[in-house]
């Protein structure tokens, strides 16, 4: 585990250094932020999706709660996101607890669909509560120019350390959980819930803890997303496709349940998307999402365990050990 944490720290520091090397106003630096954000989001999802194998398709609920909480507190009370984001994380944890009660026992596709409906409920709720959220017209983060106190900067370059820190935090949480008692128990629940219960594991409490931590992490990512893009609306931050499915997608493309899965997944997903958008966007409308869909189909069929599994090809060929991530 120490080795994992060390590697994560190295990745985060490397990302910060890369950010310093790039032009702070550039598109490249924004892509770097997007990759770190995607990795953090995928990793947060991985806590329930990977360790407990509960395929949540409703993480947009927590992402949106995080984004809206810190933004609303800024708009209404000029509260800094440094405080607003943790509050958002707490609210998301409460929401996760509330939705876990009716859905915890569900398995596979049933759980996926229930969480999907929960995400939609939150989206409709945000749209309807226009007094607080601004409704469908969305909310702009108040303009402060460059202000560390309000976690806001003109240039995307300034966000690299923030995203790198968040990435490290969420990944470290995953690594610690994965190697620790909680991760062990979550995996036991995943393999065989009844057997886990017989051995004295309080499966309900374990799953609830996992869901709450995952939701809180997701909310932090949502809060920073709002600071980074300055504008949020319900369709964006509570989006089933752009957030919920994407969070799962990042983990799955890389490798579900593995620490390196969301990192590889984020690199792949963001880079392929941005490459397709920047080269093909004006060629033929629809071609870049089309090709992205093709890539997804190919990956799922060719590497159902995710891209990380390519590593085994290499290590196996050279006769090294390395089945465990």
């Amino acid at each position: 585990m120490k080795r994992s944490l060390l590697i994560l720290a190295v990745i985060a520091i490397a990302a910060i250094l890369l950010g310093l090397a790039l032009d702070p106003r550039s598109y490249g630096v924004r892509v770097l932020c997007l990759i770190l954000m995607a990795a953090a989001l995928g990793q947060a999802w991985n806590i329930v999706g990977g360790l407990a194998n509960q395929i949540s398709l409703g993480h947009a609920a927590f992402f949106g709660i995080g984004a809206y909480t810190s933004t609303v507190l800024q708009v209404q009370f000029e509260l800094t996101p440094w405080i607003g984001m943790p509050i958002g994380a707490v609210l998301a944890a409460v929401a996760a607890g509330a939705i876990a009660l009716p859905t915890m026992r569900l398995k596979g596709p049933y759980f996926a669909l229930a969480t999907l409906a929960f995400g939609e409920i939150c989206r409709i709720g945000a749209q309807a509560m226009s007094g607080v959220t601004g409704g469908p017209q969305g909310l702009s983060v108040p303009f402060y120019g460059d202000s560390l106190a309000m976690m806001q900067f003109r240039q995307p370059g300034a966000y690299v350390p923030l995203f790198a820190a968040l990435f490290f935090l969420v990944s470290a949480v995953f690594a610690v959980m994965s190697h620790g008692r909680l991760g062990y128990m979550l995996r036991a629940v995943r393999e065989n819930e009844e057997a886990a219960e017989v051995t004295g594991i309080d499966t309900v409490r374990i799953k609830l803890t996992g869901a709450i931590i995952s939701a809180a992490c997701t909310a932090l990512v949502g809060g920073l997303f709002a600071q980074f893009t300055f504008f949020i609306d319900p369709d964006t931050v509570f989006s089933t496709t752009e957030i919920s499915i994407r969070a799962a997608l990042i983990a799955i493309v890389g490798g579900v349940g593995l620490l390196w899965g969301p990192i590889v997944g984020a690199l792949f997903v963001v880079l392929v998307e941005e490459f397709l958008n920047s080269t093909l966007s004006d060629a033929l409308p629809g071609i870049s999402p089309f090709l992205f869909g093709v890539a997804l189909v190919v990956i799922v069929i060719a590497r159902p365990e995710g891209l990380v599994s390519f590593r085994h090809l290499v290590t196996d060929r050279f006769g090294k050990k390395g089945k465990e991530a």
Partner: protein
Amino acid sequence: MTTKAILLGSALALGALPAMAQDTIKIGAIFPLSGPNAQFGNSSVNGMRLALERMQEETDGIADRVELVVTDVPAPGDAPAATQRLINNDGVVGLIGSFSSSITLAASEITERAQVPMISHSFADQITERGYEYIFQISSKGSAIGAAQLNHAVEIAEAEGVDVSSIAILYEDTSYGTAQAAGIRDAAAEAGIEVAVDQGYPLGISDVSPLINSVRRAEPDIVFPVSYLNDSLLIVRTMRQQGLSTPVVGGAAGYIIPAFKDGLGEFTENVFSVAPANYDYVPEINADYEEAHGTFMPHEALMYGAALQHMITAIEEADSTDPVEIRDAISALEYCDGFASGLPGECIAFDETGATTTGFPIFVQWRGDDIVTVYPPESAREEPIWATAD
């Protein structure tokens, strides 16, 4: 650096070459070309391409060097990265976009911080109410369009001797729908007209019977729907089915595009709608558009074509490709040629917030396969017909 400047300066003094000759000048276009608003995004880009083409034919200026860099932004979440890419990688000196208000809001957060000007035709009030310097809005705000939707309808009806005491507002719960519905609601309150039905509904609703049932029970004098195409067809048809003859005054978007006629045929006749602009001001440009695309030029094509021409002219005026100077030129310019002559004020100019000072909403009415400007009287091409459906 200084020698270059001196060389350039002397070249200018000699009048031999315009500043930075030969270089292409890139202008970014951010529009939803895929996703649910794809049709509107594509026709906006069609309008801009036509506007550029005509400008290149008609003038000897800078237009020949302008290249449009079009990028597909289907949703607001994609806007920041795309905007940044256009500014930093493609080196665009200004942006035009993005049809839907939420995409415009997201993109303009980036242009503001990068200090690159952007011209938009999205309706949302907030676009120019955030105190930003680099965003310009060529159409009236959603609230003003909503107010005009109500006030003009009441004026036309009362001129025909029809008294309006209660109305129904049906709007989709999108950014555009809620903003414009608020405009109608406020104007009704001011005019002392009762809002008998005030219903938002989810985008993509598959059966509007509940809405129409409530309209039938409330018996309002006018129905004001604010929606894209899908719901606009359902609302008009379901009213027809139930034999409701209450006049329908549409809220732009779905009510003033060729597909509205495709879906309803003869039942579009005499349907009113508020509109930010209409092609009948510029029949010659419309003929070009129709030849290329097979339909009349929808208002978004006209508006965005005008926005592009305004920006190109501003670059010419600024005699610079520095985005900050272009921004000042856009702000100072009053542009009244080409596509801009087809807008209601027949010009484009902005106040210090970037909102339009010349634009105002007009009323159009379906006549056969065309929509005709009928109100206010000084803009009208034909008289309005206040006919209740029989």
